[in-house]
Each structure stands twice: as structure tokens, then as C-alpha cells.
């Protein structure tokens, strides 16, 4: 007979014991690995054309005066666009962030606003204002106007983040304000300038519509001409190879110029905002720079669009194709956004929760297609579908896959920020309060990560809404998005009918402008 040892102490039921196998982590690794494999498709395509074409043919195709011409064009374009853009971005950022210029906040919004105008709409506006304006000067001017925000945003953000104590120290060491700007402020802007310039430089290489509209030949326009005349020939592939090499060169150059330096703030606590410089008599004349830029980058498109819209009156909005292509665009944008965010999710989770060398490698597999021109991604998918999966050629699935590859980096950035909103301590707190993992996900992880996920989706969707190159090459016959329809109409010189499409694309891009501006602002407070 057994006697209970203690009457007041009820025996607790045994708890199930399990080995933790970190299933979630492994599943995420597997999924992210598969996405990375897909993302390596364009790279595989480049390697494949290099191998298949062989040295002899490749050399014959590349060593042509035509390629040399394109190379010179591309170099000239980069050289004529980047230096003025960098100078303008620094001047604008200094005026809006560090001077007491009137209406600085509003003007900083105006400086970002040209992002809402797709580059090919910008060149449509200039082309229809000055029909004889083309070639290199036109290309450089429109490029500066269209892509300046990509430089302005990081430079302004960095300028606001600078620790004013460094400048105070320099002043106490006897440096004049001009010398402080050159020796203390400017060097700290290096990373922002390099990053922004790389982004602009890659856009210059990748853009098709802008340059085709003002008749300036770059690799991208040449590839698409080649593709449209001879379909998927080795000539187009070779040009794509040279284009990718140019991108690699640009990235390498940026990497060299950026150096290994890290500009971190010394000391703890949040920095005090820097004081703004009194402009004195220059307070009003200084307004000229942001206002002239806004007139050129926003005023000209606004003027031309309203002129074309006025010319034809209300009837222009009643084109049946307009509503249809808006619906198609929204459909593609939603599909692209969902697919890209779903594809980026495992990687985002891994890079926040399990950062190590392997996941960093996987992450670079996810982000590198963002640096590839859309035309290369599209050519890669054309080649793969034609050779291996013919039923998928010119289907919605392939277009969406192209969007996923092109916009993975955007999705990743937003998702990472969202997941980082949920430190693992909060999930642990929920577990110690008795919530099982599934209910923790619902009650804690998802509500906190949702804004980041939504922002990521919005960024991808807006990128898709104005995407032209890959859509032109990959979409099923008869597909009409806003961008392709606009393109078709302007190719027929029907500028009036094209105007409503441009207006719709600008409206769809406006939220992105606000989002990017807000994101740059948030990184300052963090």
C-alpha cells in the first residue's frame, strides 16, 4: 500500500517533452534557397550565352563599330549626367536641410516629387515641348531631372544624420565654415553620394523608354531594337552581355570609390539636430535653385500633359482601352506585389532572425537582380522559356516572375524593416504568458510586422505599374498595361491620346514618392 507523501500538494501532470528541431528555421532556409536559385536564372543566362556563343562568335559580334558607338554613348551619358546630378543633389540637400531657406520642408517634398513621373513620361513631355531636342544633351538633361531624387534622398538623409558636434569641434579647431563643409561634411556624405550615384548610373544603363523617345542610342535601346527585328538572336544576347559587364564595372567602381570606411557617430544617445545656417540676404535668391529644378522636372510634364488633355477635351478619357489597361495594370501590380513579397519573406525572416555568413550569401543572391537591367532579366526569361518551358513563353506567369526578380530587393527592404519591428524578445514574452507559437504569430508578430509588409507590397506594386521594358518583351500578345499602351500611342505620335495614360501612371506613383520620403525621414529618427 502506498501512502501519499503530501496531501496539500497535488501531483502535476507530466508535460510533453520535445526536442527542438528548429523546423521553422530549416523551412525558411529551404524556401529562401529555392528563391535564390530562381534569382540566379539571369546570371546563369549570362554565363550560358558566354559559353554557348564561344570566343570566336562573341568577339565577332562584340568587336563591331556599332558596339563601340554604344559604349561611347553610354560613357558620355554617365559622364554628362552624374557630375551635375551630384552637385545639384548636394546643393539642394544643403539648402533644404542645413539652411534657413524659406519653405524648406515643402521644397524638400518638391525635390522628391519627380520620382512620381516615370522617366519615359518625362522625356515624352520634353520631346513634345521641343520636338527637335534630342541626342546627348537632351538625354543628359532629362536623365538629371528624372533621376535627381535618387541622389537627393540619401544625401539629404545623411546630411540630417550628421553629428553637429563634429562640426562644432572643427570650428573650435579654427576651421572656417567653408573649410568645415569641405573637410568634415563632404567626406561624411561619401557613402550617400556613392550609393545614390550607383543607383542613378544603373538606371541610365537600364532605361529604355526615356532614350528611345528622344532618339538616343544606348545598349538597352539597341537590345530591344535588335530583339524586335531579329527576335532572340545571339546579337541581342551579346549586347546584353556587354550591358551586364557595364553594370558590373559600375558596381566595382562604386565599391572602389566607397572604400571600406564606415562613418558612424561616436558616442551614445541620439544626436542633437544640427543648427541651420543663416542665409541672410541670400535667403530669397537661394529659392531659385529648387524652384527652377521643380519647374523643369515637374512643371514641364504638367504643362505638356495639361496641354494635350485640353486639346482633346473630356472625350479623351472615354477611350475604352484606358479603363481596360488600368484594370490590367492593377492586376499585374497586385500579382507582382503578392508574389514578390511572398518570395522575399523567407529571406527577410532569415536575415533578421538568423544572420550569418550563409544567409548573407543567400541575401546577395536575392538582391543582385535589382542591379540588372530589366531587359536582361526579360531576355533571360525569354531564352529559358523558349528553350526549356515553351508553354510558359509569353504567359502571365513569366511576366510576374520577371517582376519578382526585378523587385525582390525592394520587397526585401520593406519586409526586413517590418520583421525587425518584432524583436524575438516580444515573441518570448508572449510564450512566457502562455501563448502557443501559432497564436503568438497572430497576436504579436503579424500586427507588428504588417506596416512593413504593406509598405513592401506598395513599393513593388508601384514599380510594376510603370514598368515598360520587361512587360514589352514578355507579356502575352494583346496585353495592354498603362505603360505599354502609352508606349504604343506615343510610337504612333498620338501624344494627345497618350496623355491620360501618363496621368494615371503619375497618380499611381504618387504614393511611392510619399513612402520613400517618409522612409528616408524615418531612418533619421532611428
Amino acid at each position: 500500500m502506498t501512502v501519499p507523501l503530501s496531501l496539500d500538494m497535488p501531483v502535476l501532470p507530466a508535460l510533453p517533452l520535445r526536442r527542438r528541431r528548429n523546423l521553422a528555421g530549416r523551412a525558411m532556409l529551404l524556401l529562401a534557397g529555392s528563391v535564390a536559385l530562381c534569382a540566379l536564372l539571369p546570371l546563369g543566362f549570362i554565363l550560358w550565352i558566354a559559353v554557348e556563343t564561344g570566343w570566336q562568335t562573341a568577339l565577332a559580334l562584340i568587336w563591331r563599330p556599332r558596339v563601340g558607338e554604344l559604349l561611347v554613348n553610354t560613357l558620355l551619358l554617365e559622364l554628362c549626367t552624374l557630375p551635375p546630378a551630384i552637385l545639384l543633389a548636394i546643393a539642394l540637400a544643403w539648402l533644404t536641410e542645413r539652411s534657413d531657406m524659406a519653405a524648406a520642408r515643402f521644397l524638400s517634398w518638391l525635390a522628391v516629387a519627380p520620382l512620381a513621373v516615370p522617366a519615359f513620361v518625362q522625356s515624352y513631355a520634353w520631346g513634345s515641348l521641343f520636338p527637335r531636342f534630342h541626342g546627348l544633351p537632351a538625354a543628359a538633361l532629362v536623365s538629371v531631372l528624372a533621376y535627381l531624387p535618387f541622389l537627393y534622398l540619401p544625401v539629404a538623409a545623411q546630411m540630417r544624420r550628421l553629428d553637429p558636434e563634429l562640426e562644432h569641434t572643427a570650428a573650435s579647431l579654427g576651421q572656417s565654415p567653408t573649410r568645415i563643409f569641405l573637410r568634415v561634411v563632404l567626406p561624411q556624405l561619401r557613402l550617400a553620394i556613392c550609393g545614390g550615384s550607383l543607383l542613378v548610373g544603373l538606371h541610365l544603363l537600364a532605361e529604355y523608354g526615356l532614350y528611345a523617345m528622344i532618339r538616343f542610342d544606348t545598349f538597352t535601346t539597341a537590345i530591344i531594337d535588335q530583339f524586335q527585328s531579329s527576335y532572340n538572336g545571339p546579337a541581342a544576347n551579346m549586347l546584353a552581355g556587354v550591358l551586364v559587364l557595364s553594370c558590373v564595372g559600375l558596381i566595382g567602381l562604386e565599391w572602389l570609390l566607397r572604400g571600406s570606411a564606415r562613418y558612424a557617430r561616436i558616442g551614445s544617445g541620439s544626436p542633437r539636430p544640427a543648427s541651420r545656417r543663416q542665409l541672410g540676404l541670400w535667403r530669397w535668391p537661394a529659392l531659385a535653385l529648387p524652384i527652377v529644378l521643380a519647374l523643369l522636372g515637374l512643371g514641364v510634364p504638367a504643362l505638356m500633359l495639361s496641354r494635350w488633355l485640353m486639346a482633346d477635351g473630356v472625350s479623351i478619357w472615354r477611350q475604352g482601352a484606358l479603363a481596360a489597361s488600368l484594370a490590367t495594370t492593377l492586376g499585374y501590380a497586385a500579382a507582382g506585389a503578392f508574389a514578390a513579397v511572398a518570395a522575399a519573406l523567407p529571406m527577410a525572416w532569415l536575415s533578421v532572425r538568423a544572420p550569418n555568413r550563409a544567409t548573407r550569401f543567400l541575401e546577395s543572391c536575392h538582391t543582385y537582380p535589382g542591379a540588372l537591367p530589366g531587359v536582361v532579366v526579360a531576355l533571360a526569361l525569354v531564352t529559358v522559356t523558349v528553350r526549356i518551358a515553351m508553354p510558359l513563353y509569353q504567359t502571365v506567369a513569366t511576366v510576374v516572375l520577371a517582376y519578382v526578380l526585378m523587385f525582390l530587393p525592394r520587397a526585401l527592404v520593406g519586409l526586413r524593416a517590418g520583421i525587425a519591428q518584432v524583436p524575438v524578445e516580444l515573441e518570448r514574452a508572449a510564450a512566457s504568458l502562455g501563448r502557443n507559437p501559432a497564436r503568438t504569430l497572430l497576436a504579436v508578430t503579424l500586427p507588428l510586422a504588417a506596416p512593413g509588409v504593406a509598405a513592401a507590397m506598395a513599393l513593388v506594386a508601384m514599380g510594376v505599374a510603370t514598368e515598360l521594358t520587361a512587360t514589352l518583351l514578355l507579356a502575352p500578345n494583346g496585353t495592354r498595361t498603362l505603360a505599354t499602351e502609352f508606349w504604343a500611342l506615343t510610337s504612333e505620335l498620338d501624344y494627345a491620346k497618350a496623355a491620360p495614360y501618363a496621368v494615371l501612371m503619375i497618380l499611381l506613383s504618387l504614393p511611392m514618392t510619399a513612402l520613400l520620403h517618409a522612409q528616408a525621414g524615418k531612418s533619421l529618427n532611428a
Partner: protein
Amino acid sequence: MTQLVISDVSKRYGATLALDRVSLSVEAGSRVAIVGPSGSGKTTLLRIIAGFEAPDAGTVTLDGQVLANGPAIAAAHRRRIGYVTQDGALFPHLDVADNLGFGIPRDEPDRAARLCALMELVELDAAMLSRRPHELSGGQQQRVALARALARKPALMLLDEPFSALDTGLRESVRQAVARVLAKAGITTILVTHDQSEALSFADQLAVMREGRLAQAGRPYELYWRPADTETALFLGNAALFDAKIEAVGVSCALGRLAAETGGRRGGGTIMLRPEQFHLSATGPGLEAWVDDVTFRGAQCGVALRAGHEETEIRFTAQISSLEAPQIGDRVFVSIKGAAFLFPAPR
């Protein structure tokens, strides 16, 4: 009745052995502090108890319920263990009421009354229930985090350096408030900290960890005055250590003959005197010494002393009331309050 039993728990991260066969029993209703320098494994041990990590070997049981048996562990949400972290880990998307009620079932009767009672328990105004975490001060956030964990009536409460993110002035008052609340609720508590003064004042049981091992466990008073080794002695406070010869009664060292418990040992050993054991007087009796330096610390001051000549010169620091501080260069006489502590012979 023993409540939490940790036996032979080991945990390895790659090449580092974070925990090396740690065993510890915690009695029901007691307040235990685990102290140690950073990297000593104390937080790893806490996370194993909470169920966020699995040990490589060893068992953890709570009231006879097995929580971990080697790498097989019970899920964290099934354990009846509360957990409060350094920054409180309040859910930023929920207000204070929802944070408090996170662990209380929605359909529980008089839920609202319980929330108010919890706020009262941690000495916060019930009007704060509608606030968001970011609208609270650091100390208030910690109290809400504590109340949130208490709401589940846990059998064991784990506190992971919960006061270290607070300002020095606030730390003391929040610590006292937390100790009061836990005593009132009668919940067994384990506090992890690297701050020895916090551990000494908070706990009625102290466990000192070093390099993944449990160096010593016992009552704070016991550990402070009778440490097992010199490292523990110096971790828990300042101390003057001297080589000593064991006499028939007491010991003799550079300070002279001192009272000490020798337990019939012979030969030599190391003795410890805490700085507050030195008594200084201008006239004697005692050992003649000179004042090298005086460090003013408010209520107390540290007096660096030098005695003896040439090879026999010794230096040590006394801690006395700052009202009685001597001048630098003064001659003083040093006598000893209480007995010296003779460290056990190294094994």
C-alpha cells in the same frame, strides 16, 4: 519542500561551453539572485529555465514536473514561469490594459477588476491602463511588465537584469518595489544580474557563476563574509587579501596577530579583510600606518594606507565614515573589527 531543481545542466555554443554541469535547488517562496560577470552563463541558465533554449544535458524540474531532460524540453508556453526582461518587452501595438491582459483568457469573469488589482499591486495608477507603452517611463514599463507576468499567477518568476536599463536613482526604488510586490504575492523568484550590490540586497539566496560554472551558492551574508575563493570574495565587494600563517589560535600576517576561525588547520593560507573592518584612530592602539590617499564617496570614504618598511611594506584600503576622514600624510593606528576570514585550503 524544494521547488525548482536544476541538475547537471550543460550547454555548448560552438566551441564555448556556456554552462558546465550546473546544479542548483531553489526553495519555494525564496528570492534567488544569480550573479556573475558578463559571459558567465547566467542568462543562458535563465533562458533554459524559461524554455527558450534547450540544454545539451541535464534536467530541470519544477514542482516535480520535468521541464527539460537533455535536449528534450517542454514548450515555453506550457511552463508556469513568468519572465521579465531588461527592457520589459511590452507589446508596442497594445495599450497597458491589453498588455496586462495578454495572458488572461478573454472570457475570464471580472477581468477589468483584475487588471485594476494588478495595477494596484505594482503601485501604478489605474488611469494608466489606456496608455501606450511608449508613453510610460522606463520604471513604469518595468512595473507593467512585472504585473503582466504576475497576471498568470506563475509558479516561478524569472527577472533578467530588469533594473539595469533604469537610471541609477530610479533603480533602487523600482528594485525595492519589485521585491515588495513579489514578497506580497509569495512567488519564487530568480533574478539574474551582473551588479553584486543589487544581488546582495535583493536576494535571500545568492548563486555566483563564473565561466559557466556555479562557483558558490548560499545566503548573501554568508557569501560576502565567507566566500569559497578569492574570485568570489573580490566579485562581491572590495577586500584586502594577505598571506597568513596559521597559529594555535587565530592567524598571523603582516598586520600582526588576528582572530580567525582556523578549524584546526596548520601551515599557511590566505585571509580576507573587508575594507569596513579597519578601524582608524589617531592615538592607537593598533598598527602604525600612513595615509597615502583619501577618496571621498559621500557617506563613506576610502583611505589608502601604507604600513611597514621596505620589504615588509604593505598597502591596503580602509573604508570609514567620511566624517572621520584623516588627511593625506597623517599617521594613524589601524585596528581590526571582527575576525579575519581564512579561505578554505585549495583542493
